[in-house]
């Protein structure tokens, strides 16, 4: 296999890893905001990795240019989608999930 194909393989493999982790995160986190972090962000990266892999395997320049355009549109549309869900959740007034043991917080805050 050529170097290009190995790189594409790495991109597809990372897509599988990110996609699976996004799925696990959707079930592990308790509230919609944190779930959206996992589902939206890791889903975006998984799809983006697939695009990069297919960009590496593109047969000619015209196809590559189209894939780049699709990538740019996807970079705009994917965050907008999770923004719409997030805004709706925020408008309904759902409080944010607070884990029992917090990381990176000052001692004063922990005493409260």
């Amino acid at each position: 296999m050529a170097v290009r194909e190995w790189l594409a393989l790495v991109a597809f493999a990372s897509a599988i890893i990110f996609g699976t982790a996004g799925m696990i995160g959707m079930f592990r986190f308790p509230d919609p905001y944190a779930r959206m972090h996992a589902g939206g962000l890791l889903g975006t990266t998984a799809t983006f990795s697939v695009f990069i892999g297919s960009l590496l395997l593109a047969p000619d320049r015209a196809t590559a240019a189209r894939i780049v355009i699709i990538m740019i549109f996807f970079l705009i549309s994917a965050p907008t989608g999770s923004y719409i869900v997030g805004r709706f959740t925020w408008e309904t007034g759902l409080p944010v999930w607070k884990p029992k043991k917090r990381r990176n917080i000052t001692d004063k805050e922990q005493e409260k």
Partner: protein
Amino acid sequence: MNVERRWHVVRFLLTSFFLYLVWLVFTASLEPYSLIFGAIGSVGIGALTHTVFIAEHQANLRYIVPNPLHLVLYLFIIIAFLYQSSVMMLRAVFTGEVSPRIVHFRTRLRSDVARMILANSITITPGTITLDLNDDHLTVHWLFCDTNHAKAAGERVKGRMERFIGNIWP
């Protein structure tokens, strides 16, 4: 020709030009048939939608037309951010070490497009999702929050990106 009318014409021309550019990239052919139909389509759609594509109150060309060099540079920066944030998120999914919190701050960007891009970039960068954008006021859900100070939080979440976007749309 009064100012309002001229602004309509400029917006119409910009919209049609943008649509025609996208048409050229997607069809990738220089046959006269395709060129002529693309031109007719982009002029027609531009005439119908230019009021939506460019808002009337964005009455300055530098609010709309980006700096192309910085725009391309920013695209690569955003891709780097995307992978960095995904690796952080991957770790958080398996360890469960998070401290979620809602933070509020303001942005100094003036253009609507720049604010929209900033909101989308915040969603892409590590552990933050934009929940609301009202004029210049952003509501952000931050998964790895480590401060109570609003200004410090704003600087941590958007500082670098706001400077980059400020170069694209001043």
